[in-house]
């Protein structure tokens, strides 16, 4: 089984990536990078990462989230985060990244925020 499974769905003009697994150095981080690059190439620049199923992330995974955020911003897009686990929220808090990312606990609220 892959370290990180990413399922893509469309909600209006927002692309939601439902992520399950680990975002860690190697396979998990590469899977996230590849998915974001592909979406940008397809012109999909409004992206919501549903992280409910991500039970583990390391510094490489955090770095990949930051890289995704800056790559999407550069293309005048928006990246938002949905359903952080408590552990991930704690990591984003201590790294001061919680103030950088737009984070939501409700999908409808997250989708509305893109409008």
């Amino acid at each position, binding site marked *: 089984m892959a370290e990180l499974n990413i399922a893509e769905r469309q909600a209006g003009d927002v692309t939601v990536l439902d992520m399950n697994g680990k975002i860690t*150095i*190697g396979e998990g981080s590469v899977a996230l990078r590849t998915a974001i690059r592909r979406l940008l190439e397809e012109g999909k620049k409004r992206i919501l990462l549903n992280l409910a199923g991500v039970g583990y992330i*390391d*510094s490489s995974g955090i770095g990949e989230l*930051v890289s995704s955020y*800056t790559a999407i911003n550069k293309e005048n897009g928006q990246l938002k985060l949905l359903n952080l686990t408590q552990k991930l929220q704690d990591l984003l808090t201590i*790294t001061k990244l919680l103030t*950088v990312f737009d984070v939501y606990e409700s999908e409808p609220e997250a989708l509305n925020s893109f409008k």
Partner: protein
Amino acid sequence: MTVETTELSLPSRIETVAEAASAVAEFVTRSGVSDDAAFGIDMAVREAVTNAVVHGNRQNEDKLVAIVLKNLPDAVEISVHDQGPGFNPNEVPDPTAEENILKTSGRGIFFMRSFMDEVDWFLPPEGGTTVRMLKRR
């Protein structure tokens, strides 16, 4: 009193990170630390082994990462040794400084220090770098 010690020697490839984490998780379960402490140890070990594999040994599989786990009476001690050119942790900038927050790397040592009670680096005479981390019960 006998100190339970486990030693591992692993090749310098990315897969080693998960392998080491899994071995440490087994050791930590036997050591009877809390779930929160076990999570912190897991995070710190993954970061320490990543540093050893990527920055120390530069993924040269001829070089090994040596890990020593000790179940001390009041703490769990984990040492990770690489065969790289030597590392100075003071040269790593603070990733929470405003100018570094959006950097895509440089948080591993910060996590190690955040989740463990003590983290020290040594440059042993035989070369390489050893990081010793302690988590008290």
